[in-house]
């Protein structure tokens, strides 16, 4: 294999920023249509009422919050890869760190949209903000939803800043090699980066600091999200394992999403030598690990339900596996805990197709995990008379489609306009390995 040089890295990465072709714009246009469709569905829902979605009594939370948790989960591994693995000096993270971070920022943005979509009266959402007001009312800090507001906004702020900080030296490289308007834009974006050793000194310290700051957030954000459920009384929600269970699940889904994104990226942009099979294999190994944690959590839930001998808990988990949502439950178990075990075999870890297919399965499985937890618990809780079923409607489908389109729309814009691999870190990496 040809040796990677600094110049090679620069050209490979900067080549991706060349003027995109018709195909690219067609895809962008299609995705934009999807976004508009989603927005239209939301507008319709605001106008008509949340009833256009499929929720009811007892299932007051549906796909909106499923998607919220799903996207927050996706948002996880970005920071995990860029911060925790950075602190742990796991070299294989470097080629994918930028893509993963970007994924994080966009996923948090999209996740943040869903609680708005979910609200009955979204136009009054500012009631949740602790702003001084005439009503002299503060939000209820006892409510996990307020924890959420704080946690998600903190996470979004830190991960965006972290992402941007990492981009600054790369912006400077682009600035140096471009002309015209583009040069002007990147001059502003690169914040006067000149590559002096003093700047590098501050930069590396700052980056380390951010990594340190972001690390607890990786744990806290999804723990907080899990408390939305664990602080409730509902059987199936009210358990102490929820925080680690959710964090592991989030990393599981996030890593899978990284694979789903990086494999086509690598193919299209010819990143084979930067994002090597070794990198993908490392992700796959981590997925096995998180998959086992998640599987352990599934088992623990069932065990504790039985061990408690609480008939309501027991019925709740019996129903999960064999009730109306049994297909969803088994999709969840198989996709999240069984299929990733294939990565134990080297053949599956190193074949790009398998990596991609399995990562998609994990994504699907993780979406259904949230479905099972959110819908399956309340649909069958304390009072049998109030039991009910929930099926999403077309409007919810439209909004979900819109959200996915928005994510890929943003991501595609990113890959053609900003460096999707961190040139700085790659150079640092080969420097260190030499």
């Amino acid at each position, binding site marked *: 294999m040809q040796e990677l040089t600094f110049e090679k890295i620069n050209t490979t990465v900067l080549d991706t920023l060349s003027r995109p072709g018709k195909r690219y714009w067609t895809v962008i246009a299609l995705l934009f249509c999807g976004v508009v469709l989603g927005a239209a569905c939301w507008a319709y829902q605001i106008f008509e*009422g949340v009833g256009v979605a499929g929720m009811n009594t007892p299932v007051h939370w549906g796909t909106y919050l499923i998607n919220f948790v799903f996207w927050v989960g996706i948002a996880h591994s970005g920071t995990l890869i860029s911060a925790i693995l950075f602190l742990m000096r796991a070299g294989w993270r470097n080629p994918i760190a930028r893509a993963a971070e970007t994924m994080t920022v966009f996923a948090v943005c999209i996740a943040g949209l869903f609680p708005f979509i979910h609200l009955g009266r*979204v136009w009054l959402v500012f009631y949740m903000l602790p702003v001084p007001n005439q009503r002299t009312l503060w939000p209820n800090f006892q409510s996990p*939803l307020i924890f959420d507001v704080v946690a998600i906004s903190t996470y979004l702020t830190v991960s965006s800043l972290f992402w941007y900080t990492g981009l600054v030296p790369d912006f400077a490289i682009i600035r140096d090699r471009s002309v015209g308007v583009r040069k002007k834009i990147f001059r502003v974006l690169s914040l006067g980066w000149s590559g002096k050793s003093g700047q590098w000194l501050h930069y590396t310290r700052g980056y380390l600091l951010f990594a340190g700051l972001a690390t607890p957030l990786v744990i806290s954000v999804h723990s907080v999200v899990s408390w939305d459920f664990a602080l409730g009384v509902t059987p199936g929600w009210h358990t102490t394992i929820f925080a680690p269970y959710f964090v592991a699940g989030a990393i599981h889904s996030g890593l899978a999403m990284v694979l789903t994104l990086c494999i086509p990226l690598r193919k299209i942009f010819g990143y084979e030598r930067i994002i090597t099979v070794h990198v993908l294999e490392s992700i796959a190994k981590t997925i096995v690990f998180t998959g086992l944690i998640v599987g352990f959590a599934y088992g623990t839930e069932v065990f504790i339900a039985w061990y408690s001998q609480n008939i309501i808990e027991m019925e709740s988990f019996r129903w999960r596996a064999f009730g109306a949502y049994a297909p969803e439950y088994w999709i969840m178990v198989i996709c999240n805990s069984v299929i990733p075990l294939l990565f134990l075999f080297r053949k599956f870890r190193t074949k790009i197709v398998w990596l991609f297919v399995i990562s998609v399965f994990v994504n699907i499985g993780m979406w259904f995990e949230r479905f099972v937890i959110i819908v399956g618990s309340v649909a069958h809780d304390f009072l049998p008379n109030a039991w009910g079923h929930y099926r999403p409607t077309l409007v919810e489908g439209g909004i979900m489609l819109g959200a996915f389109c928005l994510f890929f729309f943003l991501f595609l814009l990113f890959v053609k306009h900003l460096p999707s691999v961190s040139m700085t870190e790659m150079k640092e990496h080969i420097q260190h390995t030499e």
Partner: protein
Amino acid sequence: MDRRTFLKTASLSSIAFAWGCGTDSDRKIFSRVTASDDSVTGEALWYAATCMECPAGCGIIAKNREGRVVKLEGNPRHPVNRGKLCIRGQAALQGVYDPDRLTAPLLKTNGTFKEISFTKALEILKQKAQTPSERGRDRIRMLTGLTGKPLSDMFTETLAGFGSDRAAVFEPFSYDSLKAAHQAVFKKRMLPSFHMENADFLLNFGADFLETWLSPVEYAGKFKSMHAVREGGKGLYIHAGPFMSLTAANADKFLPVRAGTEYIAAWGILHRLLDNKSYNHLPESFARDLKTAASGYTPSFVEENTGLSQSAQEMLTEKLLAARNPLVLGSASTTPDDTAFLLDTAAALINWILDENLSLYDFENRHAVENTMSTGETAQFFRKAGTDPLDLFLIYNSNPLYSIAYIDPVERLFQNDAVFKVCFSSFMDETARNSDLVFPVRLPLETWDLYESKTGISSILQPAMGKLTHAPAIGDVFLELQGEDSRFDSYRDYLLEHLYAGAGIKSQKDLLGAIQRGGVFEQDGIEAKKTEQVKPVFDKKLSAVLKKAAKACKPRESKGIRFLAVPSLRHFDGRGANKSWLSEIPDPVTSIAWESVLMVHPATLEEYGFEPGDLLEIDAGGRAIRAPVYDYPGVVQDLIVMQTGLGHTDYGRYAREFGENPLTLLKAGAGKGEFTSYLISPDRVRKTGKAGKQPGTDGSRSQHNRKIALSMKGDRAQDHAHAEKPGLDMERFPLTLPYEAGYDEKRDVYPPHEHDGYRWGMIVDLDRCVGCSACAAACYAENNLAVVGKEQIIKGREMAWLRIERYRDRNFDERLIFLPMMCQHCENAPCESVCPVYAPHHSKEGLNNQIYNRCIGTRFCAQNCPYKVRRFNWFEGEWPKPLNLQLNPDVTARTKGVMEKCSFCIQRIKQAHNRAKNENRQIRDGEISPACVQTCPTGALVFGNFLDPKSAVSRLARSSRAYQVLGYLNTKPAVIYLKKVVHDV
């Protein structure tokens, strides 16, 4: 800009500006700017009146706010219902504001209806009445629902003026067999009322006295004074019949009896009674005849033909003999066929054999419905109307094309173009649609009238609000028909004269008192002295009946599946089907709203290969209906049971196309006997291949062994033996009172709430609750609950703040138990802690307030509520005009996107606070009645202050039956339930 453009722009913009200043009349808060003399803006006026939703004639008081009636409540002074109302009584209010109510007369010309003015309509009517009277006698006929005496006198006088006979009085449920049985035994075609409250054992062969039978509110109250737990135990009630109606579900024991063979069971009991004991008060010859008649009804014969086991027969006989005051009731409002007559005769005879004095019969206060025609007479009336020369046919307060369309001549009459048919109806129902002139008249809540609910009770109707339409009162229409020579200016004058003449009113003061009280009735109620001793009379006719009974003692052939139409608690005979609350509130037995289902035993379903939810088609007598199947083990095998009242082809938006009308199938049995056969053998029952989700509101019928709706067996000692040491699990968790007393530092993290003088709470006595759903209807009326309709209920989006949960009893699997579930106003409310914006809020008086303005609709509170009593406004509520005028001005109508739930009727609590403050005192115990508590016919709900140790709620909370639903969650609900007590027989 030149001068012209400037002027143009300026004038256009000022016009545009002025345009926007127009007022929107809908936004007026008060309907009256200047209050009338007797009203104060913001304060309610109450008018006493009478409910006309069924012939029972309960007294009501109508709450008028700023000129509109907004709520009906039972008249506490009225001897029939004593302040209580049933579900239909509560919903009667919606009739006035029905969006499909006709506002002008409609004349049919060339097959289509055209609106005309009332003057024109009256002219046509006069002219149409004049011509036939010139041609000869009896060329005008009139059919009317049951009315008071003054109105029927008015009809008679007017019709006599045109040379025609009196109006025929018709009610779809006319209790023919009961009347005929009393005719046979007591020689008078009458419907005495029963002192059920004095009975200690009640044996019922079908009478649905908690739903529609004679006077349901009255009997619900009387039944519970006999059957509720009190000092010295509770009475025993056993129901033997083909179908576990709501009434039967409230029995201690339900004994299935094959449909149409109830009479065999009754005669079998009679047989055993005569065998077991000799009765001295029976005349010898009669005793002999009776014994002969009953001789064939041997225990084995009865067992074979009815399915009632010999041991059950023996048990019933023993209980009857052992009881001090046994009472036997006969058939339901809908009779199987002619055999119902034998059943009711047997019931009357058993009652008399066991009690010489018939002390539980009240022959003085007889039910008004005894004055109606029998089905035979009705058929005869229509037959004669078809054959005799007839020019004009008048219909008032009756919908024969819906309720007795199975009688052939009815349809023929309406097809006869030579007869001019006038329907005095405010709705375009089936009969109105087929009439030539539809003449809307005022509804009972807008009219002066009198109604004799019972023979001793004159109940007054008065307009409780101003007119919504220009329709005249029916009495005034007839007065107008009488022409110039009438002595009266209006029907009201006519009525007053009647009152002065007959009803014991002597002065203006008496009159005023009667109007204020709601009628002329003895202050102390129905317990009138017995002046006339009614006794069975033995004559040839009675011996003929006995012979008939002996002859009927033969096996009843029952091949294949049969079909039984039963009266509906909610829709009765269908007259109120367009009142949306009645359809929105689910039937308590099936928990199904907006739909009439076929109730079939699961074993029968399996036998015929049907699945629950399958749409079946039933053909009988050339008619077919299609309805979904509901599996219900409370029906005997090989029987399909369906409730009446739905399936209108016309009438209005809430009635049309919902459910099916089982009465159309009765053609098969019509005309065969003296009485309507509500039990028929359908020609064919087949699957249509379609199936669908039913608008049911229940998730599961089983309690899954959870501590929800509890019962205990009759002997209390056994219960004490089972009393366990308190623990922390579901069954043993102690009762935790929802205030400081319930605080336990070992269990509670947070300190208790502080309360400011009051801690409101409720006791729900499951032993008294019969599941009648009147509370739910009262809640809809009081709290402006939105009606969401069938589709949304299928999606699980009903808005009921209070629902009747129906479960299988954990102690007796075949029994049903009903549990009213509303916001529990928990002390540790799970909803309060999770709301990010403090929309649920714990008040100083322990109420869990929902602040609609704060709510942003995260729905976390509802997710976290273990009782699932919170309701979310998925859409904007709709009140098609003028239904919006019914909205209670004291309660906000919620907007889309907010959560709502039971508030314990906080508006009533606030009013009590104002009163108490003005009078400088504490609120008294019992002063506040939330709407549900106020209307409960059996007194199952009690509201009050837990901080007052002497209050009724505090006293009842100390009962050994007290428990909290899912109390182990330590939410400390302020609704404390009392276990149902069931005799284990």
